[in-house]
Structures are given as structure tokens and as C-alpha cells.
């Protein structure tokens, strides 16, 4: 295939297959045994450790690191997975710099936390490399539960319910389970089909029947599920994508970032995936970073990530933004999109300079125009397809306690409920809802 490095327009094969393969290797290489030993030795085994508090799933981090010190990484993995069944994915995608590693006392000591994320991967990889599933099921309860959405919240909920002896039917709208782990996370954070392997491993608990291609409100309804099951858990995520409503935003090659990431994750041949020569990503969150970085890795010559507010207000962590900059992404702040320009396809995009004032964000009157043959919108996702009868809290499904919705017998968790939209938060919510479902069902 010819290499279209400097071709205008949206073209495949901007780099050679080898170059692209090299660009999409593991963002953080796994720790070797000796590296893990040295990294683990840095843990102070803090009393009432701040890292545990900072972890949404409350993994006993000092304990699992001490198990690594003791030469038992699989025991460490068991400690992790007992709290967070998707501990393998969380080790790869958690913004540890704002969670456990931010809380690590080594930051105060010397500015370098213990590498908790990489150590977590070291432990969980060891468990998943084993041939047996490390958790077993309790005696059958005879209870049947429908879990809607096979993303992190649904998977965590289903696994915990299966452990408790319940029969779970896991409904998923897409072809594959995994949710954002499968479709929404940057490829270089989950190499070698890890998301799918992790789901396969998780299903090893047994007692979970996966039904893909079932979308709530289309092939199944909440009312039917309420009738047919003892309890329902909704982990339906945020299926809708926000659009700014700009002139020209329907032009060709003005796409949603999530669709680009989805296509990329599902591609068998990244060199065949077209990308613009000059790419502009609108947004300041993790999705914007993932789209911008991956556009660069596919060979886009210039990639700009443009955010309407200032740097501090960005949703993406400092670490992620620094990583994007290191990959050659130009990060532009205080610029709000005003028009996407072009004839059939995009040619450039205009922004208005902004500044934060007492009455919120204001434009300064200055405009800037960036050349673009491809624009990705990454300004957030929203709840879509909520069944009638569920009370909302703002733009999410209202819950009280461990995921109880306004409807009796219906729980919810993950991105569709209030709280931070993080894999690890979704896992915690799914797990905790499962515990609550279990105690509710077993009481009655």
C-alpha cells in the first residue's frame, strides 16, 4: 500500500503498517519481575492508607503490594479482584494520577508516587494468566436477575450476583460485551484485545447468560424485565452524543470522537483506517485526548485539541494532557467553536477566543481559524433511551444508596447515574448494587 503521509483529505495509510503498529503498542509496558519487586519495595505500607480511601473500589493497595513483595503476585491479584473484578482494565485505564497515586504519601516525600497502577496490572495479569477462575459461586438461590448493559457497571454487578448464587441474564445492545472498555477506550491502553479477554475471564464464574443485540426499549422493555426477573440492574451508560449545534457541523468528515474511537477499536487493520491530514478535536475531556492522540498515532500531520475553557477546567487529567502534548497534539484552550467551514467536506473550523469572567465564559471578539480536513466533536455524552417511570437527577438516573432507583426492584449504576464517569466508579457502583440486590432479595 502506498503511504499517504502528506496527502490532503481523509486518507488511509498515512504511515506504514509497522509504524502504526509501533505507535499502538502498550502505553505502559508491563512490569517485569524485578521491576515489580523494586516498585513494590517503595510502598511504605501506610497505616489506614490514603490510597485505599482514594480508590473508588477501595482496593487494599498496601496489602496487595506487600503480597507482591512477598513474591506472590497472584495473591495480590486476588486481593485486587475481590474488590474490583475489572481490576485488570482499571490498572490500564484508571487516571491513577488523580486517584490512588495522587494520594500516595511518596508524593509528599519526593514527588514520585508508588506505581500502583502498574503493580495492579502485574498482580491481575498473573491471576488472569492462570487457567482457573479464582472465585466460586455460592449455593443457587433460585433468584433471577436481569442486568442491562455489559459495560463495567453491568459486568461488575453480574459477576457479584453470580458469586452470590443468583442466575443472571446480561443484556447488551452492541454485538460485543465490554461497553466502553471494548468500544470507547484508546487502543494503546488496552492492547491485544484485553477488554474481550477480560470479559471472557470474568464470565468464567458461571451463572451469567449473555444476550447481545438487545437494546432496552427496542427488543426488551423494562416492564418485561420487571415481570420476568426478581430484580433489574440498569448499566446502560450514556448512549447519546452531544453536538454543539454549529453551522457546518453536518459537513462530511465532521464526526463524533466516540465513533472514531469505536471504529478504531474495532478495526482489524489500522492502516486501512482513514484519518485527516489536519485534524481538530473539539473538547477537553478524556475522549478528546483519546481521539486526538490516536489521530496522531494514525499519522495525522497536525492535530489540535481545542477546549473552550482554560487548562484547569479541562476534564482530562494533567497526565493525559501532557501525554497528548508529548505525542505532538497541540493543546489550545480558551477557544469556543463557532463554525465548521467547507463545501462538501470540512476545510477549516473557526473558534472565538474566550475568557472567564464574573458572569461565566465570555468571548473576546477575536477569532481563530484552524485548517482541518477532519473534525471530531468530543463535548460529552448524554443519557439516551431511559425507560419511562424512572426519576432523573439532572441528566442522569436518580439513585439513592447503593444504586436504588425510584422503581422498586430496579437498580442502576455506572455512567447513567450521577457521579464521576470512570470505569472504576462504574465497577464500584455495579458491585455495591449487586450486594444490595442480594440482601434485598434474600431478606424477602
Amino acid at each position: 500500500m502506498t503511504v499517504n503521509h502528506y496527502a490532503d483529505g481523509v486518507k488511509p495509510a498515512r504511515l506504514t503498517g509497522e509504524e502504526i503498529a509501533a505507535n499502538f503498542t502498550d502505553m505502559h509496558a508491563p512490569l517485569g519481575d524485578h521491576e515489580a519487586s523494586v516498585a513494590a519495595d517503595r510502598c511504605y505500607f501506610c497505616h489506614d492508607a490514603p490510597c485505599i480511601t482514594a480508590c473508588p473500589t477501595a482496593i487494599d493497595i498496601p496489602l496487595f503490594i506487600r503480597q507482591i513483595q512477598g513474591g506472590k503476585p497472584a495473591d495480590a491479584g486476588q486481593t485486587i479482584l475481590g474488590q474490583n473484578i475489572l481490576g485488570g482494565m482499571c490498572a490500564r485505564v484508571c487516571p491513577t494520577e488523580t486517584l490512588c497515586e495522587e494520594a500516595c504519601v511518596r508524593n509528599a516525600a519526593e514527588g514520585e508516587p508508588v506505581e500502583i497502577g502498574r503493580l495492579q496490572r502485574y498482580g491481575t495479569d498473573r491471576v488472569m494468566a492462570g487457567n482457573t477462575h479464582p472465585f466460586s459461586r455460592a449455593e443457587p438461590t433460585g433468584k433471577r436477575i436481569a442486568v442491562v448493559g455489559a459495560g463495567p457497571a453491568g459486568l461488575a454487578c453480574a459477576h457479584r450476583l453470580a458469586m452470590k448464587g443468583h442466575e443472571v441474564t446480561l443484556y447488551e445492545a452492541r454485538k460485543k460485551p465490554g461497553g466502553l472498555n471494548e468500544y470507547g477506550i484508546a487502543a494503546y491502553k488496552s492492547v491485544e484485545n484485553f477488554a474481550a479477554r477480560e470479559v471472557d475471564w470474568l464470565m468464567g464464574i458461571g451463572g451469567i447468560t449473555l444476550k447481545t443485540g438487545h437494546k432496552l426499549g427496542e427488543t426488551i422493555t423494562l416492564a418485561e424485565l420487571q415481570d420476568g426477573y426478581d430484580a433489574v440492574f440498569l448499566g446502560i451508560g450514556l448512549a447519546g452524543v452531544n453536538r454543539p449545534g454549529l453551522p457546518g457541523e453536518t459537513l462530511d468528515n465532521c464526526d463524533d470522537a466516540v465513533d472514531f474511537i469505536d471504529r478504531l477499536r474495532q478495526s482489524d487493520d489500522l492502516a486501512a483506517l482513514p484519518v485527516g491530514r489536519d485534524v481538530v478535536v473539539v473538547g477537553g475531556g478524556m475522549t478528546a485526548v483519546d481521539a486526538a492522540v490516536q489521530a496522531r498515532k494514525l499519522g495525522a500531520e497536525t492535530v489540535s485539541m481545542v477546549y473552550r475553557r482554560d487548562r484547569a477546567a479541562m476534564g482530562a487529567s494533567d497526565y493525559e494532557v501532557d501525554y497528548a502534548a508529548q505525542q505532538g497534539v497541540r493543546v489550545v484552550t480558551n477557544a469556543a467553536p463557532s463554525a465548521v467551514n467547507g463545501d462538501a467536506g470540512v476545510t477549516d473550523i473557526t473558534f472565538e477566543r474566550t475568557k472567564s469572567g464574573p458572569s461565566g465564559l465570555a468571548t473576546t471578539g477575536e477569532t481563530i481559524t484552524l485548517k482541518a480536513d477532519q473534525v471530531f466533536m468530543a463535548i460529552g455524552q448524554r443519557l439516551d433511551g431511559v425507560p419511562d417511570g424512572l426519576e432523573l437527577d439532572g441528566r442522569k438516573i436518580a439513585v439513592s444508596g447503593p444504586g436504588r432507583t425510584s422503581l422498586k426492584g430496579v437498580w442502576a449504576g455506572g455512567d447513567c447515574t450521577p457521579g464521576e464517569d470512570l470505569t472504576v466508579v462504574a465497577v464500584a457502583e455495579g458491585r455495591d448494587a449487586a450486594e444490595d440486590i442480594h440482601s434485598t432479595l434474600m431478606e424477602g
Partner: protein
Amino acid sequence: MADLTTDFLGIKSPNPFWLASAPPTDKEYNVRRAFEAGWGGVVWKTLGEEGPPVVNVNGPRYGAIWGADRRLLGLNNIELITDRDLYTNLEEITRVKRDYPDRAVIVSIMVPCDEESWKAILPLVEETGADGIELNFGCPHGMSERGMGSAVGQVPEYIQMVAEWCKKYYSKPVIVKLTPNITDITKPATAAKLGGADAVSLINTINSITAVDLDCMAPEPTIDGKGSHGGYCGPAVKPIALSMVSEIARNPATHGLPISGIGGVTTWRDAAEYMALGCGNVQVCTAAMTYGFKVVEEMCSGLSSWMDEKGYTSTADFIGMAVPNVTDWQHLNLNYISKARISQDDCIKCGRCFAACEDTSHQAISMSEDRVFEVIDAECVACNLCVNVCPVEGCITMERLEPGTTDPRTGRKVEADYANWTTHPNNPGAVTAAE
């Protein structure tokens, strides 16, 4: 730069760093390289009697313990004395001493515990021109099973007897190397002195098993499924050696007997500590075996610059300076009362001090909701455990309570006068201090 020249028993060397009798000093090739690297002297690896040399095992001779980053902390060996021909060694010693007249060359010897054996070998060693001999009464493995090494060192009468033979048949300084595998180190040291030895060197290695292979259920190093205890050395043994050195240095029966300090000397500081406790020089082995001969450069530069900082112009200026401060527990000042102080600026809030004190000591550290750790003076006995477990050096310190203030723990006024257990009212054997 301070002058590191050392005079030990009249033997001059350009610095106090000698290589101990061990594999690094087993042959001319190594010793020449050591002298080129800057070592002040060597104790040649132990010679045995004339005849077929000893044989070593053909499996692993060493075992070790490490820190997490494979820093070698302790080394164990089951190697015997030199397994090369006696005359080969003697010829090499002669050549090396001739070529390096400014360096100390000491010959370590281990022959059976009878006068004839010593009478036979000593003139041969004398002929080499070496500066002195060191009697290997220390090796705790292999040779001890044949009545040599530590089997001699554990019997003070034998030490005295052999030392006497050596002084009788050898004209130059005689150093007795002591085994630590004994209850009271002053006994063999006293015996050496009574036998006329010019000095003692210590410690030799400590009986040890470094690890157990849990798959084949055998001690390490394992040879064909079996293991034997070895001799332990390296940084891990230094505290044991320092204590033994100090006992010899302060014991009236042995005070003043020259000492060559051995055991885990790794940097200049270790050497300075041994010398402060009365050693005229130090011997090094594990550091050289771990890092090579080049380590002596740091030892020399570090010791010299420290001496400059302190204003010492010769090693003699500080040798033995710490000896008067080594005392018995019963003489420690019970009116010296201190409390732990935690620097909130330096604290990283790990809580290790709290866990240690709360779980295992005196419940004298409080922890607030927001992880502020503070000392409760009314409970603090100044044990120092919090200082030892704190990962931040200097964050927790011990502060003396001024005389005249009240110790919140006891409610008693802090006395200015020194008072120890010998006069304490709780001591049934207390005596009234002399007027």
C-alpha cells in the same frame, strides 16, 4: 586532604583499608590488581600445611540475602582455605611484597593445632618478607570439622598456646583472628594477649544458613540436595562486629590491644566507626567481592574528606575516641528524659509511627481525622521506635526535657543530676552514692 597513612603494629600502609583473608587475596594476580587499585594492604588467603592442598566443593560456595533491588546485604560462604600449593603461594607472596614494599602484606595461616605444624610453616612464611601473620582461628565451616579454624578459636587455651608458638618461631607481628561464634569475645581476646599476640582481628564469619529452598527443602547454597552452614559476612554483620570490637576495646584485660576491624565495611563511614571504637585499621572483603576493587577509592576519599571536616590530620587522632562512651546499661543516666518530636513540615502522613506505637509500643502517638500525627508526652517513653520506622530521615527527633521541667508521663520534675540504676530506689542492690 588528610593523610590516611596508618601504622598498625609498626606496619605502615598508605591507608587503613586492607583486604581481608578471603578469595580476593588468594593469588598474586588478584593482589597486584588490588594494590594497583589503591588498597593499603592485604591479608593473604589462609595457607595450610605443606602437602596436598584442601579441596573445595564443586557446587555453589556462596549464598546471599538481598534488598528488593538485589543490593547484597549479607553473604555466606563455605569455601575453605587456599586450595593452591603452599610453595606457589609463598613464591607469589615473596614477589608481591618485593614489588610493593609500601603496602602491608600479612599472611593468614591455619595448620593443625600442634607445635610441629606451626614450627614447620612459620620459617617458610618468614622468608617471604611479608609484614606479619594472621592466625585463622575463625572459619566456622569445613576446617573446623578437622579441629582447625573456629574449633581452635572457641577454646581460649588453644589460642594462647598457638599464639605462644607463633611468637616463639616467628619474629614479626602476630595477629589472632577471632571467631564471633562464641558467647564472650573478651575471653579469646584475652587469651591472645596472654599468648603474646600483637593484635586481634575480628570478626571472622558467623555461622549461618542464608535461606531454605522450599521446593527441595534444603538449605542454600544447595549442593546435590544438601546444604551446610556457612560463614556469614557483609553489611548485615557489622552491628555484631562493632559490639565485639567495643567489648575488647573497653575491657580492662584487653584494653589497648591493637584491633583490626572486620565485618561489613562498605563505605568510609563504616571504617570510621570501627576506628572510633578502637580499631587501628579495617579489613574489607564483601564490598570488594560485590563491587570490585575500585570501591577503595570512595573509602579513601570519604575518610579523608571527613577527617578534613573534623580537623583530624592523622587516623591516630580519632582512633578509639568513642571507646570511653561505651558503657554498661546500669551506668546510663536515668535522669536523661526525652520525648519524640514530629516535624509536621516534614511529615508525609504515612502513619507508620502511629501503627508502630499504637500496636506495639506505648500508645503515645495520636492520629487525627486528617492524618496529623502528634506525640502524647504523657505516654511517650522516648523508645525511638517511631524514629526508626519513619521513612523520612530527620522528621522525628528526640528532644531532651530541660532539667526543672516536669515529665508529663511521670509527673516528676526532671532532675539535672546524673543518676543511674546502681543508685535507683527500685534496685534491690542499690548502694548509696559516695559522699
